[in-house]
């Protein structure tokens, strides 16, 4: 029996650690997420955010500990986890000589879905991101922002119950970023759990129901954004940035 599932958690990590050579990238991370949460994974560069997301997805094997994602063990059942989770990497790259549309069709085929249905479902999102015209061009000609949009569409293609997004609005123009934020909120209202790593504390403050702060691989705070201010002994009017700086410097 897989742990976590019985307790109704979408995601449950127990003492998750990852060592690269002598460096401990993630150190004893324990985390439990419920349906509909939007969790911001925050931390300075090298805090272990991307490594954490990759560990949860099963792209990396943990040195110690384990994680259960949507009832599947992310180490021993990595393929099953990847089938169910939507993931958008920090630096997306695709096949250069496929168009955006073909990339979506390929990803859908791999996951056993129907491409025309998926494209129909994604149509409002494609329209909102003003991406129709670029969908029929080779990815080779895409800018970073366009690749980010495509990565997000790839992550959403199979309507997953859990989204792991690494810097989802990095390189995007502000209107697109706002539209994505709204879309993520809509999804969360429908019970989708979103984990996003970001440097944009303002966005995390507005969007996330919960923030997880990491520093040097360790979890140093886990709770609502307002609780972060309290933990840092700041008043309610203070920005999340101040709280972040204070907590990280401790």
């Amino acid at each position: 029996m897989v742990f976590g599932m019985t307790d109704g958690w979408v995601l449950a990590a127990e003492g998750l650690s990852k060592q690269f050579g002598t460096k401990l990238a993630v150190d004893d991370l324990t985390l439990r997420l419920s349906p509909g949460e939007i969790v911001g994974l925050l931390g300075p560069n090298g805090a272990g955010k991307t490594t954490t997301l990759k560990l949860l997805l099963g792209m990396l094997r943990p040195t110690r500990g384990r994680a259960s994602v949507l009832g599947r063990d992310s180490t021993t059942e990595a393929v099953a986890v990847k089938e169910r989770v939507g993931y958008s990497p920090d630096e997306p790259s695709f096949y250069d000589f496929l168009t955006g549309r073909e990339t979506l069709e390929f990803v859908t085929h791999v996951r056993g879905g129907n491409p025309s249905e998926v494209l129909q479902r994604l149509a409002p999102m494609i329209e909102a991101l003003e991406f129709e015209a670029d969908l029929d061009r080779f990815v080779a000609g895409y800018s970073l922002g366009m690749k980010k949009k495509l990565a997000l569409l790839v992550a959403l293609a199979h309507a997953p119950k859990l989204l792991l997004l690494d810097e989802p609005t990095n390189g995007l123009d502000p209107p697109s970023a706002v539209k994505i934020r709204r879309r993520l909120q809509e999804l969360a209202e429908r019970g989708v759990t979103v984990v996003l790593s970001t440097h944009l504390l303002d966005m995390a403050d507005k969007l996330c129901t919960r923030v997880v702060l990491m520093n040097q691989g360790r979890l140093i705070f886990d709770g609502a954004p307002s609780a972060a201010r309290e933990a840092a002994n700041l008043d309610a009017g203070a920005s999340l940035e101040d709280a972040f700086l204070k907590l990280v410097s401790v």
Partner: protein
Amino acid sequence: MRTLRELAAMTLLVLRSWHRMGPRLRGGRKPEPTRGISALLMRLLLAALLYNLGFSTSLRIRLATEPSWAATWAGLGAGCFALGVTFALELPSPRMPTQALKSELLELLPLSSLSKAILVLAQAFMALPLCLGLVISLHNALSPQTPLAAAVLLSFALFVSFGLLGTCLGKSVKLSFSAYRASQLSWLSTLPLVLGMLLIQFASQRFLQRRPPFGDDLGRAIIGRQTWGGVVPLGLATALLGMAFSVLDRKHELAEPVRPGAIRSALGQGAGMPALERLLNRREPGGSFQVPMAALSAGALAGWLTWKLPAHSPSARFLWNAVALITLQLVSTLGMQRATRGATRDMLARPMLGSLPILPRDTLLSKSSTLRRTLLIVAAPLALVLAASRPRPEWFWELSWRVVATLLAVAIYASAATYVAFLSAGLGTTRPRGAFLGSLESFLLTVPFASVVFAPEPVSALLALFTLAALTFEARRAALRTIDWLDDAEREHSTEVWRALLVFAGFQGAQLLTQQLASLFTGLLSPTAQMLGAYAVAAVALWATTVREQVSTPPMQRLQLAPLGLLAGALSGGFAWLYLRVVHPRVDEVPHLQVGSAAEFALLCVTLVGVAPIVEERFFRGWLQSALEGELPRRRYLAPVLTGLAFAAAHPAYSFAPVLVLGLINGFLLLRLRSLSACVVAHSVHNAIALYLGS
């Protein structure tokens, strides 16, 4: 000052492309230690081989009834080769990071047109030794009284004028089409390359003995009877083409590397991994033309030779070698190029692929099955050769087993090339670029592949097939680890076995190169001295790299077990005697060593009985087998078998079976006794018996 800066930049660029230091300069992963040496070694080897090709062509032209006409055809062939190379270099490539001097980079540099032209020609250097080998040797043989400098000048003029012509054609193509379309037209470069090689090969044949298009002026110049009559027109052509280059260079504006317009979706109906692979292959530059063109040319050539040659062939093997050579070239070139492109593509798309529910082994499987299909289409026309058994029914059996063995080898080679390409692209080691001898890795595969195609008899073909399969097995293991490592840097990213195999390929390469170089001094060195010299250089290289690269220490040396080696050596030596005298049907193929002096004989004894056993046992048993045992802890018995096959593959085809027996005996001796000394003694005894049989 500017000239100096340009000179420095050019030198750096040439060095960079020569050493293929791309990843190192980009600040990427640390390259494998064999990388720099192997790249230089292989390029020198290629230059030596092409010089040799020019030289050996000239041998046949001397005997032609109309040497000046034949020389014109051969000169045009060498020119076409230079044209094809520079044309290919000029066209943009959307993704070939190893080709540092590709046109995009050149156009971004603030160099003068002259420097750019020199750079392009420096890249196309392989064609120069061909021209030199051809012109100088013909000139020396047919008109030794005229100065050598004139012949050298003529070869340069021939190379430069045709090279510039290719560059100008490339620039015109770029001006006429978008960058992406121009890159898709790069397949056109294979036409002059193939035409050039065919002209060189068949220049002295009777069917070409009709007046060449430019009369026989060029031919007369090449054979040294009218050198200046060739140098002057070629020099004028060079000046004109240089001016055209300059004009085209100024006119050319760098388009964006790849930005095609909207494309209709081609994946809507079905996108299994093989379908995706085929689509992506088609969209690579030249992707849609390569396979049909290769299959057509292989078919046309096989058909034509089958129709023409049987009347003049002394044996089925002669006919087969003529037909199979081109197919081997096409299959290995196309296979390695396709595999490399596919692997590079997947490495670049790894962030997406890693997050999808696809297992690395499925990716490899779909790629190798697609490549297998492609290569079998190209190799299938080889079966046409069976038609030759109509006029010569006694050839049927030999041609049949050769066709079957070669097609099997092509199927295995497709998988091997896929795995090797993943290994190379992932680890940043020497990248196989599709050349016949492009890298250590491709060399490692080409040797057993060629051993199957040109096997002396069915047993050798079967054994070489096993070797190729064993190599493929190892490459697959290493490739899967590479993909794991790309996702997770903590995991091990190279296997010691693969490293040992690369060193082994370096050993073979060094031996071949030195032998090629030594053959240039045929008058000064006897064949035995050439062979010994080549082996000595390669043995030093093998010993040095074994000592430097081997991670774990060699197994215990227990001298008291040495007498057991005597028995083992006598056993395998006895088998060699039995094999060569009784079983082997073609004893006439075993070369008899011609020893000129007592000193030479003593040197031969020391090398074969003293040096070779120590160096080879230290490598094969001490490193390769020990590494395999470490990596196959549950199937340790496989280690001596795989090592034995590799060991036998390193020796000439006629001695494959006896050497395999020695390898197996020594392998199991080491497995049971952990004593390298017994293996060395057995090897010495075996070689002493072989030396006795040979002399």
